[in-house]
């Protein structure tokens, strides 16, 4: 088997879909942030793949930028989560299961 | 790649890993005797000559300890953490060249001719060696975090959080202080860096070549500030004493390895000493000429001295002599690590963060900018 462009793109596609599924259907904020990181990683993989197979270095520069921005995004997102959880400790934004509430229904 | 080359390479990887692991008992002994020497005590001196067998007795003690896990602990992570602590140090040490490559001429053996080979004196060769070492050593935080969290103890968790915050903060200063050397020697690979450092100190100064014939061309003469910053940051990365906040005995029992016993704690110690080894090797390679010692011990001079031998044996002997030079420099820096540990007291946590963010980082930036301007003007 020859490993070519479409194999790498397939991996990238599957990774992106896993991330998308996580973003759309998980309830926990932290997991949603992680799934966004997964999607960004998948895009990076396709950038680097295209840059290597078509010998376009600009795509690698784009991948570099994506990495930087996603690091910044993770920093801001985590800071916001920590602040929200500190400010409203009663608010159940991480969607923990509340046994008393479930008994009512 | 034929059978001979693959076999030798596998043996080489195993030997370099064992070299790292086998340094640990030696270093523990040096640490004990050295601390005793500094504090005017005797140290271990009952078991064996000069107390050399003391470590073996301690090992037996560790092996007989009970394997304990608190009831709030998480079993899988608890056992994985000590193993994880060994991996980054081993990988990083494998990427650093310990001597010149060995060139083997073509020869006949077992009725077959074996082609010429080049064996590098390191586990694996990478073009981007410096980035690789930085990346791999930044993974060491995971083992500390996992160890602290999975123990299910407050002291462990505090130790782990301190350790990870400290490691992330000092990584910035560490990488930035290396940028100066990278700019200066214009390469990402360790062996090119060492090659650039053999020879007399010579640099361009406004178009003229200035040569100072009695000094070697080491990085320390160009980057004294960078060397100091890197050394301090490496101390913090290795969690050694002025920066051993994660395991401050007076505050946190034993930090992230409070709950560990037996062989697992030995693995943590191996990881710590492995970090020390990597740190010393980085200092030697970046700032002190690596495995060469101009003007006496350079590859060319030793080759000339051994020219009566066959080329293969000449190359092998040269590599081992230069490896001895490297180990000598390495041991010198390891001794400085031990010396500092028994000399300086521990920082307070806010002092540690101030030092990292308000002192090391700005000075590293200044160093980078000045180096860039000098390289642009003079080269």
């Amino acid at each position: 088997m020859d490993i070519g462009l479409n194999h790498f793109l397939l991996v990238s596609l599957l990774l992106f879909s896993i991330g998308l599924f996580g973003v759309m259907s998980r309830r926990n904020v932290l997991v949603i942030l992680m799934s966004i990181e997964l999607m960004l990683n998948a895009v990076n993989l396709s950038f680097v793949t295209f840059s290597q197979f078509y010998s376009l270095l600009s795509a690698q520069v784009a991948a570099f930028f994506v990495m930087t921005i996603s690091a910044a995004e993770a920093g801001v997102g985590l800071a916001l989560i920590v602040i929200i959880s500190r400010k409203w400790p009663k608010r159940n934004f991480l969607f923990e299961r509340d046994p008393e509430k479930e008994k009512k229904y | 790649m034929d059978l001979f080359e693959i076999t030798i390479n596998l043996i080489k990887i195993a030997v370099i890993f064992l070299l790292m692991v086998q340094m640990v008992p030696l270093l523990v002994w040096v640490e004990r005797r050295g601390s005793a020497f500094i504090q005017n005590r005797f140290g271990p001196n009952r078991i064996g000559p000069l107390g050399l067998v003391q470590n073996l007795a301690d090992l037996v003690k560790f092996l007989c300890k009970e394997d304990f896990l608190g009831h709030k602990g998480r079993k899988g992570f608890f056992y994985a953490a000590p193993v994880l602590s060994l991996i980054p140090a081993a990988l990083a040490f494998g990427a650093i060249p310990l001597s010149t490559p060995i060139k083997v001429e073509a020869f006949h053996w077992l009725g077959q001719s074996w082609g010429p080979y080049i064996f590098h004196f390191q586990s694996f060769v990478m073009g981007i060696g410096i980035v690789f070492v930085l990346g791999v050593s930044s993974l060491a935080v995971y083992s500390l975090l996992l160890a602290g969290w999975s123990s299910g103890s407050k002291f462990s968790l505090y130790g782990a959080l301190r350790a990870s915050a400290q490691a992330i903060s000092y990584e910035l200063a560490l990488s930035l202080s290396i940028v100066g050397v990278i700019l200066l020697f214009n390469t990402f690979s360790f062996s090119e860096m060492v090659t650039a450092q053999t020879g007399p100190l010579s640099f361009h100064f406004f178009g003229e070549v200035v040569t100072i014939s009695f000094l070697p061309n080491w990085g320390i003469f160009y980057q004294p500030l960078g060397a100091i910053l890197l050394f301090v940051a490496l101390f913090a990365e290795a969690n050694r004493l002025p920066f051993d906040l994660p395991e401050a005995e007076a505050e946190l029992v034993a930090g992230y390895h409070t709950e560990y016993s037996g062989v697992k704690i030995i693995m943590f110690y191996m990881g710590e000493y492995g970090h020390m080894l990597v740190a010393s090797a980085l200092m030697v390679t970046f700032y002190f000429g690596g495995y060469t010692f101009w003007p006496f011990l350079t590859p060319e001079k030793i080759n000339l001295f051994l020219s009566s031998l066959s080329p293969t044996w000449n190359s092998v002997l040269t590599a081992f002599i230069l490896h001895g030079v490297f180990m000598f420099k390495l041991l010198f820096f390891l001794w400085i690590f031990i010396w500092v540990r028994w000399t300086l007291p521990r920082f307070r946590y806010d002092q540690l963060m101030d030092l990292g963010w308000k002192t090391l980082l700005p000075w590293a930036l200044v160093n980078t900018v000045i180096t860039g301007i000098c390289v642009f003007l003079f080269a």
Partner: protein
Amino acid sequence: MEILFIFFSALVLYGGLVTVFHRDLVVSALHLAGSMLALAGLFFILGAHFIAGVQVVVYAGAVMVLFVMVVMLFDLKKEDSVLFSKGLWPKIASLFFLIGLIAGILPLSLHLFQPLAAQVIEPTSTKELSRLLFTKYVLAFEVLGVLLLLIAVGVAVLCRSQKNVTTS
């Protein structure tokens, strides 16, 4: 190369799946870190050595450590979280998206990209990459620097104002 590709891509996908489907947040975060390391391996066999190194330093070494730290600070128990939201539509929508992507990419990749598959991959030189970064894309690079500074200041301000609110 084939074996390495299969190994690394299996690791990447396994890590991603566990990240999304596991109940325990710590396990999720650690698997995401592993997935990113394996992705660095994929970059390495593609020949983009510098990007692989940056991936290890930035993602696995900094971003994921931050994630793991925050998750450990929250200290959630694994039984205590509801896994998925109740609506069925997001799942169906992402499934359709996946099918659409596969349907869109497969015909294209089977015909268009076939001749390029056998091309030999050259490792890119870091010098070329950095030259491009500092000449053609220098403006974007500077803007990124400003963005990072902004975010550092912003996060510091957020945390500080929070502290004042609680103490006053």
